[in-house]
């Protein structure tokens, strides 16, 4: 903190336990919050630019590298956008196998966030490893869940980070039914551990904080949406994926290498992610997940961002249950991928990455080379909403010390499980008090 004639400056340069690098800057004048900026300084890597001129066949391997934690979401979204451009419609078996991959990534990512990144906040610990020193059995359960998610990805995609089986039209190689069935006992134990996780997070005391959100997520008529559907919101939006860019705008602000998304019509922020999904798609939870949601400490729909940890836990139950359904019904897609012919075209797709709605659009030429790419990750969509949340939180806690304010801000931001690598295809905390 620095104070010069009524000016108080507080800085936190690097937020921890989020994926990627970002900070926060607060300007406080005469005891009031004057300005607030989520500083995203993670270096830009220019994915949309260097994808131009690459073969569409290379795209899923390249887009995976946007994010080490949600590579599957990026590769499947890019593949589906290109398939939509070329009119390729993979059948039910391929769709089911892709759903299993989505589930695997949700289980791994949610377990990582709940047990290693966010739970330490509720126990006053610096991280999951420090928490393990006190509650080893608890952290071991989280690691076991994470491991099962990774094992599923490894079977389907060769490795946990940047798996390599996904291609346009389907899969380079599909696993045998016997291999997939071997996952079953592991997923059954993950289901039990996920139900235990819902009980655990239900025992936490969540801060009272209920902003008025516009929840945005994919919705599907028959299932808890993951890989496709329509874009819906709690304020009545109901769009085809093609309409995404007409309704949501990306703005470039000076303090961020991540673009900020807002509603194009009135410039307002919106919320993507597990809480939005659960609020909007509660009716499509599978029976075990529905029961876990109903028995949790939260009544749905819920506007408290701190309940995000409960939504994630319920979604792990959902993803495990759904995985069992896919595993039992699994038939090897034959052929594993559809042939296709290349022509000049444009297409888009949206999916639910662990952190929320993810949108990709590609224009390709008649040689099958990318002419333009557009990638809108969930954290970029949530950046403005995070700032809006902080603006609501901070005025009520300005009488606290700088360290306490920063701690409260960081905890609030962690609800979003921000993925800065994604959003830049970058967060730092800094407060100026004047």
């Amino acid at each position: 903190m620095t104070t010069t004639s009524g000016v108080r400056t507080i800085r936190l340069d690097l937020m921890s336990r989020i994926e990627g690098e970002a900070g926060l800057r607060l300007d406080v004048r005469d005891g009031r919050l004057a300005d607030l900026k989520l500083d995203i300084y993670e270096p830009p890597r220019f994915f949309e630019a260097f994808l131009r001129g690459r073969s569409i066949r290379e795209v899923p391997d390249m887009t995976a590298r946007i994010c080490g934690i949600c590579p599957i979401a990026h590769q499947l979204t890019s593949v589906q956008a290109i398939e939509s451009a070329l009119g390729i419609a993979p059948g039910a078996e391929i769709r089911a196998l892709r759903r299993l991959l989505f589930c695997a990534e949700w289980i791994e990512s949610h377990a990582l966030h709940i047990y290693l990144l966010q739970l330490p906040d509720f126990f006053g610990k610096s991280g999951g490893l420090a928490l393990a020193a006190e509650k080893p059995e608890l952290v071991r359960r989280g690691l076991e869940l994470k491991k099962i998610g990774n094992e599923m990805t490894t079977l389907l995609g060769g490795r946990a980070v940047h798996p390599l089986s996904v291609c346009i039209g389907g899969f380079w190689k599909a696993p045998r039914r016997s291999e997939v069935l071997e996952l079953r006992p592991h997923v059954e134990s993950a289901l039990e551990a996920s139900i235990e996780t819902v009980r655990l997070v239900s025992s936490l005391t969540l801060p009272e904080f209920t902003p008025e959100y516009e929840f945005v997520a994919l919705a599907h008529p028959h299932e808890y949406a993951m890989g496709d559907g329509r874009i819906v919101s709690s304020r009545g939006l109901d769009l085809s994926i093609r309409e995404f860019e007409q309704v949501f705008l990306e703005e470039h602000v000076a303090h961020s290498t991540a673009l900020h998304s807002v509603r194009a019509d009135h410039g307002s922020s919106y919320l993507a992610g597990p809480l939005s999904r659960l609020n909007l798609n509660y009716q499509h939870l599978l029976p075990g997940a529905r029961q876990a949601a109903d028995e949790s400490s939260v009544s749905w729909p819920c506007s408290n961002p701190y309940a995000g940890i409960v939504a994630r836990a319920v979604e792990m139950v959902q993803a495990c249950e759904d995985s069992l359904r896919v595993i039992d019904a699994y038939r090897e897609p034959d052929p594993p991928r559809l042939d296709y012919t290349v022509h000049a075209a444009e297409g888009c797709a949206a999916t639910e990455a662990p952190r929320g709605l993810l949108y990709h659009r590609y224009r390709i030429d008649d040689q099958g080379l990318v002419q333009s790419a557009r990638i809108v990750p969930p954290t970029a969509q949530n950046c403005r909403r995070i700032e809006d949340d902080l603006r609501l939180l901070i005025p009520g806690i300005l009488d606290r010390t700088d360290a306490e304010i920063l701690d409260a801000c960081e905890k609030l931001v962690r609800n979003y499980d921000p993925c800065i690598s994604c959003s830049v295809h970058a967060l730092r905390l800094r407060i100026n008090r004047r």
Partner: protein
Amino acid sequence: MAENAKPRLAIFKLASCDGCQLQLLNLEDELLDIADQVEICYFPEATSQDLDGPYDVALVEGSVTTETDLQRLREIRRNSQTLITLGACANAGGIQALRNTADVEEYTRAIYANPSYIHTLAQSTPVAAHVTVDFAISGCPISRRQLLDVLTALLIGRAPELPRYSVCVECKRSGTVCVLVSAGVACLGPITQAGCGALCPSFHRGCFGCYGPMESANPDSLCQNLMARGVSRAETLRLLNGFAGGSEEFRSAAEKLEKAPL
């Protein structure tokens, strides 16, 4: 390392996807034991603990793309006895090194409405271009097994060692049929360092070189071989200009191929 004290470990990120440092957390069965054997001083992805150096071991993920990161890297080097790079970004500039042969100002204009807000270097460069690297772990991402091997070696005080042969050796060992010879699939296996377990060929597709060049690789010869099998020059070039395209070996082969008469 001080007698009886736990080695002090720090994990840093430059321009990257976080996937390599995630591999440490992906050692689910060993993570708590590792945390018991070392003092994790700095690992912002996983802990709010932030202890100053000096560090016994620094693990560095990512490439250098900003002036700020370059200054950070120099400070990391000054503060660390052993510096280990993790993955293709730190070792060769990563996929974002594709900017090195492009116009970065144009890249910025293509994505950002206000290019003047963006401060980035024209090149994405490997860590070794700026500071001494004591050991490099390859891969995009690194293998968590190799990471464990290297950490174990450091803990017991022997020099870390990883295989320096090609992906081809791994295919032969696992009984994977050669995709290049049997199906004419473009494959960088003959010039790519082992470590992944020859994953791509086991999925019936060619290796795209994410572990980077093996020792004494001969990319020129492989390029001629690929093109003799009907792989187009453009595709061969794209293969070289991939995840390890910023490596000296792959870059010079690509430059040579570009200049060669058709």
